[in-house]
């Protein structure tokens, strides 16, 4: 087996435990899409156009509730801003790849692909390892996600509400939150972000999340500044 194939398989294997969480999450997103008035094709297209579950859910809710277009666009993008952080962390490694690779690999950049790759890369990793390990993880996840959301849309209303499957959404976020609050500024950002979100529950058109996330970043930055001054 060529090195590129070995690395691809390694990446796919490394991401498989995470698929256990991602595929049910995809199912939920699909079931949610089917339960709205939004055209299923528009809803499913978010899976391969946006390819970010949390942002998709929020986008679908905002589209369905007839929010302002500006809010429906801005809120998922704020949720997706964390990808800039991943992009920054991966940039030194991806700098070893061709410009064509640097242009298309970010399309499949997700929380999971980032976590898996960042923990595998060494400062002296070669270009083949960087590209194919990442692709093994990211494309496996992409395929699982597309299948999960399609099956979810197809099952649609047949999933009984008593299963409370929508709770997995909160659980996915809690799982993502744990590593992000390991620093004091991160914890401050989360506590303030979560607290303001509860206070801003009645804000119209989903603007509460934007206000809360901004407040969290500001509070966390102040904590960060006090820590480093």
């Amino acid at each position: 087996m060529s090195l590129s194939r070995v690395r691809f398989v390694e990446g796919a294997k490394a991401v498989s435990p995470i698929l256990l969480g991602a595929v049910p999450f995809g199912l939920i997103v699909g079931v949610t899409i089917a339960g709205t008035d939004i055209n299923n094709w528009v809803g499913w297209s978010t899976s391969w156009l946006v390819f970010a579950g949390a942002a998709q859910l929020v986008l679908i809710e905002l589209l369905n509730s007839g929010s302002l277009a500006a809010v429906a666009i801005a809120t998922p993008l704020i949720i997706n801003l964390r990808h800039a952080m991943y992009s920054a962390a991966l940039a030194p490694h991806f700098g070893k790849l061709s410009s064509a690779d640097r242009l298309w690999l970010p399309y499949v950049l997700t929380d999971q692909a980032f976590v898996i790759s960042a923990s595998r890369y060494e400062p002296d990793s070669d270009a083949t390892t960087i590209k194919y390990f990442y692709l093994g993880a990211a494309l496996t996840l992409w395929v699982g996600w597309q299948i999960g959301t399609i099956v979810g849309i197809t099952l649609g209303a047949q999933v009984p509400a008593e299963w409370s499957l929508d709770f997995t959404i909160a659980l996915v976020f809690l799982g993502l939150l744990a590593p992000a609050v390991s620093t004091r500024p991160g914890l401050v950002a989360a506590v303030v972000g979560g607290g303001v979100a509860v206070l801003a529950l009645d804000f119209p058109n989903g603007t509460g999340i934007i206000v809360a996330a901004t407040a969290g970043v500001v509070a966390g930055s102040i904590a960060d500044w006090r820590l480093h001054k």
Partner: protein
Amino acid sequence: MSPWLIVLLVALGTYLTRLSFIGILGDREIPTSIERPLRLVAPAAIAAIAIPELIAPAGPVDLSFDNLRLFAGLIAIVVAWKTRSIGWTIATGMTSLWLLDWLF
């Protein structure tokens, strides 16, 4: 605005966010003045979505014992903290919710 256009704009914005540093930075270092606030977007935005799901699952704030999602969520937080695994967090969180629902 048409839903298609909104989805396309979100897709474009998301792609550009993912491309950002990989596209412009090459193999140079990121200025810490940009990197530090960026690190905080994830905890702030994720908590802003997750915490209301636990404290106010049905809309208004509910801190009573009837709010099973709050308790299942607290168990999941401990598991998330200890295991750092989304899979285990979902498994224990859902099992806790079903058990609590069955018990009470």
